């Protein structure tokens, strides 16, 4: 089939979604792409702007993750605190802790330095208005700053940036601030620094590494979007620093502390995933023409598609499940159930699947492990595998022989050890003394 034109892709995606408003990519969903880039199901649903949470609920697998109202209110309170007084405290923090110097400092010692230069409106608010307007104002700000660095404001609150994702525009909102300053590397050029305000604590210089990694990947999305903005304006893309500023509460209090984080690695990953994200058209080409994820309902509240129809549509698009999806993707419970029904080794996690020689299904694992012939290396014939010559995951013949040898050795070692200890292979602690009592 010929590749679709851009407009036909847009039409097709609109068809898939049905007559409901589209949901958009944000920094969080884009960051998530780097975690599971090979999942067609999510790529298609995200590209079509389908409300995955609502879809999962309709087909009976509603996600359970959410955010506590306490965490949200704490996050908001901390952000307000950091930005209070027009960002004066924030600026002082950035200067003291990171050596970032606002470009205005160059004007001489007689200039006021605590965030109130002559043309400085302090914290400029870009968080109001519709998306187009906010994006335009952000761009204007960058253009103005490039023309006259001295005249531009120091901090911008919630600028809006744009990124091309799978042929469609996605808007991202650098959580918080963009600051124009010189770095402490002593270079004479000023840069934009993106800052991310997070409410998880940095205790004795350490923060939860998972949360830091998540924040770094999200920040990388902003840096990339900013680079695209600069490129679109014909400006060099190194005008935005690849070090982002992470602002978190220090220890157990509310006082903010700032840390520079190098996000070049995450930036490369995000860029690679966005480029690799197969042109959405190619993914759509492989789908049934009448596929639809339409979640709309008529005036009487009758859904236009039944749960069963939606379920079939979801099943028709291939997923790539991993247990980590449970904390990231709204569809995860459905995909987990699917993996369980098909006995996919994905269910047990990537590390287990790798240890099993990459085999795709549990049935194949057990079949291979029980083939005594597999024990002799080299003498293995895949037609003899007892797995119906069917799909045995993404492993080649040589790998299959190696997997068979490994599994067979594992099974034999396990059986012998259990027999030696007098424990039955299927038995467990629960069948003894405590098993029956409920």
């Amino acid at each position, binding site marked *: 089939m010929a590749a679709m034109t851009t407009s036909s892709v847009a039409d097709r995606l609109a068809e898939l979604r049905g007559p409901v408003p589209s949901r958009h990519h944000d920094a969080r969903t884009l960051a998530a792409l780097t975690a599971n880039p090979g999942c067609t199901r999510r790529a298609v649903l995200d590209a079509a702007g389908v409300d995955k949470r609502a879809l999962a609920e309709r087909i009976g697998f509603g996600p359970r993750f959410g955010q506590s109202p306490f965490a949200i209110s704490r996050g908001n309170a901390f952000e307000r605190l950091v930005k209070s007084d027009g960002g004066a405290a924030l600026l002082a923090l950035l200067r003291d802790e990171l050596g970032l110097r606002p470009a205005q400092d160059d004007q001489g010692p007689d200039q006021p330095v605590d965030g109130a230069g002559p043309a400085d409106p302090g914290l400029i608010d870009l968080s109001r208005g519709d998306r187009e307007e906010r994006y335009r104002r952000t761009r204007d700000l960058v253009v103005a700053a490039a023309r006259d660095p001295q005249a531009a404001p120091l901090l911008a609150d919630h600028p809006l940036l744009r990124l091309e994702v799978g042929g469609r525009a996605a808007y991202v909102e650098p959580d918080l601030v963009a600051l124009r300053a010189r770095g402490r590397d002593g270079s004479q050029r000023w840069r934009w620094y993106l800052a991310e305000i997070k409410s998880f604590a940095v205790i004795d210089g350490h923060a939860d590494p998972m949360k830091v990694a998540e924040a770094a990947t999200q920040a990388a999305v902003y840096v990339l979007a900013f680079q695209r903005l600069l490129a679109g304006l014909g400006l060099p893309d190194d005008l935005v620093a690849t070090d982002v500023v992470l602002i978190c509460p220090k220890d157990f209090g509310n006082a903010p502390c700032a840390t520079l984080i190098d996000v070049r690695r995450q930036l490369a990953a995000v860029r690679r995933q966005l480029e690799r994200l197969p042109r959405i058209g190619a993914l759509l080409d492989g789908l049934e023409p009448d596929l639809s994820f339409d979640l709309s309902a008529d005036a009487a509240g009758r859904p236009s598609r039944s749960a069963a129809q939606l379920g079939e549509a979801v099943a028709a698009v291939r997923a790539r499940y991993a247990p980590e999806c449970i904390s990231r993707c709204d569809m995860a419970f459905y995909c987990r159930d699917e993996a369980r029904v098909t006995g996919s080794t994905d269910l047990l996690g990537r590390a287990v699947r790798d240890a099993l020689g990459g085999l795709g299904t549990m049935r194949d694992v057990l079949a291979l492990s029980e083939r005594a012939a597999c024990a002799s290396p080299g003498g293995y014939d895949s037609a003899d595998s007892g797995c119906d010559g069917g799909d045995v995951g993404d492993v080649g013949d040589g790998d299959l022989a190696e997997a068979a040898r490994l599994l067979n050795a594992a099974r034999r070692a396990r059986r012998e050890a259990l027999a030696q*200890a007098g424990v039955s292979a*299927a*038995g467990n602690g629960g069948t003894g003394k405590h098993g029956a009592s409920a």
Partner: protein
Amino acid sequence: MSALAALARVEAFEAGRAVPLATVRHVHLSARPLVFVPVLMAGEAAAPLAALVGTDRTDPRLLVVDQPRDRDQRFVFLAELARIVLDHVAQCRGETELVEATRNHEQWERHLDAPQLVVPNPGGIEAMRLLGRSARFRSAQGPYPVDPLVPVLGRYLTWFAQDRAPTAGSSVCLALTEVLAAHWATGQSALEDQHLAALLAWIVPDRFGPAGAGLTGPQAAALAEDPDRWPSAGPATDPEFDTGVLSALIAAQQRAEGDADAAHAARRALREALRGRLQPTWDLLWQGLDLLRALPEAGHDEHRWRVDRGRFTDFARAVDEGAPPQPRRESAVAAARRLADLEAAQEAYDKQRALDDPLMLAAYRVTGEAFAGTVVAVDAERRDTSGRTPKPRPRVWLRTADQVVLRQGTKVACPQRPNQRPSIVSVTRQGADCVVELELSNDMGRKAVPDEGSVPEPGESRCYATVLAAEFFPPPPLPDPEQTPWTHGGPPAQYTPAGADHDEDWH
């Protein structure tokens, strides 16, 4: 993830319930463990919300902070917790035993018991670490005085969670999900095993659902994941609970301020709601401990617990003698020493488990670090006559179906005679099998001929592994802290309790 453990997960999936990963219990269980289910406020660094704690499964103590953002109430909570934890610690300090002097250590007294804290999951240990950090620098004097027990509690919680919990083989502070997952493989992922109820559902599915329902592991796990039946085991509460129940109850407290009756009712409602959330986890914890208790004790259990008792004795004495609180960040020398300790403990634990448990040893066979088979021939008379006096150097040939990838000269050992460390002379392939030739060089007595029973006999089954022959290397020599070289930051500053420590900013 070893291939053996991975295959066990597949077997569990097929069987519809957990399968054993260990044949004996590799942790020590105290007769009276202190079980602790902490819950922290979402979004805050270490704001305790509630806890169930105690040594009596039928009578846990419920501790609740009515206003988790109120600094004073946090320390009232910590003071109450301190009374319980420090009482448990004190009870372990009754009797002592005399430890004879050795070359490096003079004679000393070791406590006959040590405390044991059991929390539901690794998050519980992290909560202990954070509570410990928030408490250990406080002071009974100064602008924000706290109960004098609070800083002592802080030191103990830090010791439990930061010193002992990461040390392999230590049983002083256990996260139940980790211990259970080390003894049983489920048909779900390691990530899902962190959910205590779901993990237990795979091990004892009959306990979930109505009596006699005969659920399978996955069916029981599906029920166990329902937060209304089996609430989160902490330290975070379920977001739905926060939204639907907790925020309203905390708001009710605020509204009731000044009205004694309303405040009392609001407090009681909050306590009941939290008890309801914590009680299921409390019950699961004890069920998990029952399951572990039903396993036979590992051979090295007593040895490892003795180490724990010794470390406890040292630490308790240091606290008595007024040692300063553990620093925010360890000095270079202390960190290097600690790393060496952790590595040595891990090596010792791996070796002990392989000796105590054939299932642990089996994993090494799959990776080629061990081989098992039958002794097919023995030359017990063989001697090395190259030296002045001939030395017995018997040779043993063992036939194995395992793939032997070990090099010539590698030292191995077997559980039947762990101190004897033969080396591999040759490996010959015979059909699908291998014949391994071993030379024995030690642990055969001091006579010209090997002692009776010190050389394997033909027909015997043996499993030789490199892990069992691992030698203990003394840790690298480290300078005294005062001698820390400038490359490592120079000598650390002496600890002096600074004002900033106890009036650290709290909101």
